[in-house]
């Protein structure tokens, strides 16, 4: 058989170097070709990750036992000898940039699975990669000049097969250096709130069409990065794509839940999903709570757990000794069972009364969950003017720091309605103690509850926050701007000091949550928004003359009128018989039970993306807990691959 020359560009020789020419015959297999190239370059290195890329056909030559003939390669083929793994700049759901080695040769699904393994995110099938919004040339330059983006580097990590071993719940590859630990912290601890300015600069979708545009940027899961024109060091966004989160487990899913929370938070802040004002306040309160807890958990981390444990042990021991010696059991019981009380002069105002007397000073005592008040301290032994049980009442702050007004507004339920009462305190400290007691009492708890002190601190912290807000724009960790907790719409609508009491009010319902619970709660509220989990596409239904919106979620397809925004029709996957894609005319056709047939072509996105979304959700619904951990990639590709899978 006749030999001919094959030109192969070897990247390691430098961009200017001419292609290496080797003499081959048609029956030479790919492995042989690679061997000859390596010989020719005379470079000693580990070539195991290298493979041949056929430029014209946009194809990897990965089957080393195939011959050149079988691949159909002739002398005019432009081949590149290049590594299969190259670094990319991955933008995580928390908007941090991470440099990581990505598989450029396998289908994107595989690339994502590999990266998620490094990042310690379970169920990688729920995530995928997006191309970033194309930035304007000017802006890009400006960004480069600022050079503020901190880039975390994980390119050095090479994982052996099998599940990574864990140290204290952290994968081994994150504990070997301080840099890696910092990366793990970035992954597992939520990021501080962004400043309102950065938020306002970021892209926000304004309408359904904008939202549909986002979905046109998803990469194709069944083709490789290289095939989709992604180059080394390109930026790619990693996001949760399929909104059916399987088996969330706080124990194993620290990174997953944190990133999910971050994605949810950005979706709320950037108005990618609509919510009501009340929901926004709750989201803001949860963010505030999570930010605060993240800071403290960070300190714990630094001081080291072991040290803290030892301290606790010794403290417990000394406590034991003390109790044995100094206290008789009765005293001890009393100390356990006695409930702290508050006593002070406060001013009371009852708007219900017709007299316009305003605030009246009285002696107040707070016992259990009840407030009693007397004319004066001296009369506190007698009958109170009134006793109010705060259980089940509504507590709201009425505070104006500039005006030194610290009022607690109480709505106390009574059989014939709610009694409105204002209590005015002298200063922050008094206010925070009484306010905390009122809050606990409204939930039926007394000041003996362990959360009392932290509640007092919470309220004080909130007040300080409000104090510093006007004028100063310092976004230090301790001092969070309330504007950074809500979306720009509400930043415009309310001043920071108007937001503070509302967020504080919402905060009292979540103040007792642990960090992880708070994140999960945030995700849950996000999930229960009516528009949650809907991915939009602009489509044209067969026989229709105007564009409409197709919404795809984990259980149904909805058809939305573009002009009004109303849902016109819903189809559920349960009733779906089959769906087909005509790749020639790029049309998706779906058949439902009862002879319902729909067909549409996709306007904003490739029909492959729509096809993959539907197939993906059907794949997600096939998962169950029994067949844990083993991801059926083959089935995924079968359901989502389209013509490539055939």
């Amino acid at each position, binding site marked *: 058989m006749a030999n001919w020359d094959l030109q192969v560009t070897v990247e390691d020789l430098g961009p200017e170097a001419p292609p290496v020419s080797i003499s081959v015959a048609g029956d030479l297999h790919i492995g042989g070709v690679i061997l000859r190239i390596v010989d020719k370059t005379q470079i000693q290195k580990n070539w195991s990750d290298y493979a041949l890329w056929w430029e014209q056909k946009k194809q990897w030559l990965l089957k080393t036992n195939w011959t050149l003939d079988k691949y159909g390669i002739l002398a005019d083929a432009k081949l590149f000898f290049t590594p299969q793994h190259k670094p990319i700049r991955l933008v995580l759901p928390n908007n941090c940039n991470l440099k990581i080695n990505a598989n450029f040769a396998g289908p994107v699904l595989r690339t994502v699975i590999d990266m998620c393994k490094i990042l310690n995110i379970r169920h990688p099938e729920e995530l995928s990669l997006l191309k970033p919004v194309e930035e304007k040339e000017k802006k890009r330059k400006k960004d480069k000049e600022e050079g503020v983006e901190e880039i975390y580097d994980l390119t050095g990590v090479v994982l052996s097969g099998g599940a990574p071993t864990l140290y204290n719940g952290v994968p081994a590859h994150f504990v070997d250096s301080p840099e890696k630990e910092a990366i793990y912290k970035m992954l597992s601890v939520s990021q501080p709130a962004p400043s309102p300015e950065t938020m306002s600069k970021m892209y926000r979708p304004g309408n359904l069409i904008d939202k549909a545009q986002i979905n046109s940027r998803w990469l194709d899961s069944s083709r490789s990065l290289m095939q989709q024109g992604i180059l080394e060091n390109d930026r790619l966004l990693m996001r949760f794509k399929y909104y*059916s*989160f399987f088996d*969330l487990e706080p124990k194993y899913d620290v990174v997953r839940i944190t990133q999910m929370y971050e994605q949810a938070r950005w979706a709320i802040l950037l108005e990618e999903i*609509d*919510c*009501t*004002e*009340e*929901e926004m306040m*709750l989201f803001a309160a949860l963010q505030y709570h999570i930010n605060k807890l993240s800071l403290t958990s960070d300190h714990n981390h630094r001081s080291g757990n072991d040290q803290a444990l030892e301290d606790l042990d010794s403290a417990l021991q000394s406590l034991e000794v003390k109790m*044995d010696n100094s206290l*008789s*059991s*009765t005293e*001890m*019981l009393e100390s*356990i*069972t006695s409930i702290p009380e508050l006593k002070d002069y406060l001013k009371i105002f009852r708007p219900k009364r017709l007299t316009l007397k305003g605030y009246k000073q009285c002696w107040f005592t707070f016992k259990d969950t009840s407030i009693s008040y007397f004319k004066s301290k001296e009369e506190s032994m007698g009958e109170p003017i009134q006793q109010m049980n705060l259980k*089940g009442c*509504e507590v709201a702050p009425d505070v104006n720091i500039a005006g030194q007004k610290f009022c607690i507004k109480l709505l106390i*339920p*009574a*059989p*014939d*309605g*709610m009694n409105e009462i204002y209590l005015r305190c002298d200063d922050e400290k008094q206010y925070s103690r009484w306010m905390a007691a009122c809050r606990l009492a409204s939930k039926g708890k007394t000041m003996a509850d362990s959360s009392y002190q932290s509640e007092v601190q919470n309220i004080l912290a909130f007040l300080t926050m409000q104090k510093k807000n006007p004028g100063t724009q310092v976004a230090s960790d301790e001092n969070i701007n309330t504007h950074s907790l809500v979306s720009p*719409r509400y930043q415009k609508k309310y001043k920071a000091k108007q937001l503070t009491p509302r967020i504080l009010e919402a905060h009292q*319902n979540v103040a007792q949550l642990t960090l992880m619970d708070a994140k*999960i709660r945030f*995700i*849950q*509220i996000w*999930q*229960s*928004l*009516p*528009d949650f989990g809907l991915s939009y596409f602009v489509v044209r239904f067969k026989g229709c003359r105007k564009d409409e919106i197709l919404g795809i979620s984990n*259980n149904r397809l909805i058809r939305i009128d573009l002009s009004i*925004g109303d849902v016109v029709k*819903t189809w559920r996957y*349960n009733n779906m018989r089959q769906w087909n894609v005509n790749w020639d005319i790029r049309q998706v056709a779906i058949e439902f039970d009862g002879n319902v047939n729909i067909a549409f072509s996709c306007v904003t996105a490739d029909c492959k993306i729509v096809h993959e979304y539907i197939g993906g959700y059907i794949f997600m619904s096939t998962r169950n807990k029994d067949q844990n951990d083993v991801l059926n990639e083959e089935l995924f590709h079968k359901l989502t691959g389209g013509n490539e899978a055939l």
Partner: protein
Amino acid sequence: MDDIEAMFSDLLGEMDLLTQSLGVETVPPEAPLQKEVNYSIGFKDLNESLNALEDNDLDALMADLAAEIGEPQQSQKGHSNTSVLYQDSQAALLPPPQSYSSGPPAATTLPPIAYSSSASPAPSFPAAPSPSPAPIVTSTPVPSQPSKPLTKEEEEAQAKADKIKLALEKLKEAKVKKLVVKVIMTDNSSKTLMVDETQTVRDILDNLFEKTHCDCNVDWCLYEENTYLQIERIFEDHDNMVECLSQWTRDSENRILFIERKDKYAVFKNPQNFYFGRKEKKEMKEKDKESLLEENFCGTSIIVPDLEGALYLKEDGKKSWKQRYFLLRASGIYYVPKGKTKTSRDLACFVQFDNVNVHYGTDYKNKYKAPTDYCFVLKHPQIQKESNYIKYLCCDDRWSLQLWVMGIRIAKYGKILYDNYRTAVQKAGLASRWSNLANVEAIASSVKTKAVPTQANGCPAQATPPVTSVSSAFSDAWKRADMSKANPAESKPAPAPAPPAPTMQEILPPPPPDPIMTQQECFLPPPPPDFYDLPPPPDDFSEPPPDFLPPPPPCPNAPPPPPPPLLTPAPAPVLKKVGPPPPKRTTPERSGSLHGGEQQDFMSELMKAMQKKSSK
């Protein structure tokens, strides 16, 4: 012994009456009989009903108490605690003597002396009238002195720790709040239960399942009626009973019913009707239902049904209703402000669910000139009277009302609702196994039941008063017998908190042919359920039908109503047989009479006893 003779003749008289009453069962009732099976009529208000509390109620309560006390003799503390409690409950349950004249006629048949001089279970029985006969009684928790049992300092550390633990438990126990509650059954009889703070509605339902012979299906619920506001709601299974009842005012006329409500768990039986839009009400395969429920209730967060539409809102303080467009979200109910669209960001919050419960409003067309009678009410649980803080909403039709109430419950309770349902299903499953065993007997007895009407003669129905007098004479008789039997030492009307529990056990007579025995058995924990349903207070007969209308049937697609219950000449109570009738009933009179089977059971026991006695 004269007493017993007299009692027997009374008994025969009463039996006569009963058979006569069966003859005229075709007389239509005055009260509108809805197809709803749960319809319960009777006491106009709980107050009166409590005034009219019969001995059997008290006895049942005693049995409850005895069961709950557990080991009363073991500690003085537990002892005094419960006895105080008991005393309290008696005080409130007892009607003030002066109210007898003005009360329902039945009450007059029970001379106050029967209580005060009775040696029956509680010697500490105070005859003193309680100033306001509250329907429920809060027992004052006895402040316990934990130091008392812990004085021995020389004991070892281990023992010390144990004692502290014990003391803490005691302390906790002493603080457990207990209430006495009267639950009205479907046959309009009532049961008096003691519930404590630790009990959920589920616990009480289980308790009632044991005591009644209902089929224990998932629709059984405790149903709160606020007659003043004309609102009612299903107590959720996880609700804390004591907490719910504590919200009532002291003069409350609220009632608790033990009834079946198809709407209790309608969403779990037919989720498609709630989740697939209102128009597509249809059947679905069980498997699909399951997956639909899984989808909506088993994810990381539950999914609230999509629900929006125009509702009428009652304006504050006025009798006018204004239409608004409302939307249900997991975070609350919202409305579309004037001139705005229904996009999320424009919505105004109408109410959030943290502090409100949802109730049905009944007959609001009359009460508040509502556009329809399909109303629901949102209010803080503590509000019991009319107030601007109560929100009244009105739907166009019954189905829309069902959707809203269910939707709100889903939004408010979330997964708990589903968990409750699954527990209820489990309980129902267990119960059905038992009822299968009982079925054979039930069928046998039902055959006999059918035979009864043929015995009925053509006698005209007699007026009801004689019935009451018969039964009161009867109860008087047994009390006198009881008194003679009881230990004189305990019959002193001591107001001091004497321990009730030992008393009860002491007065338990040896298992003889004694009519008292049948009554006394009620004190034995666990009580045989058969003896529980003693004749309902006789005032039922003379009581006019209550003026409230029953709630609309819960579900339009609910199965057809059961065969119309047998009717009595008396206007009121409709007997509803729940589940298989209890086995081992032999007397034929049982069936159609509104006295229910239990009374006949009791009487047959009595009769047997008498026969034995006379044969001596």
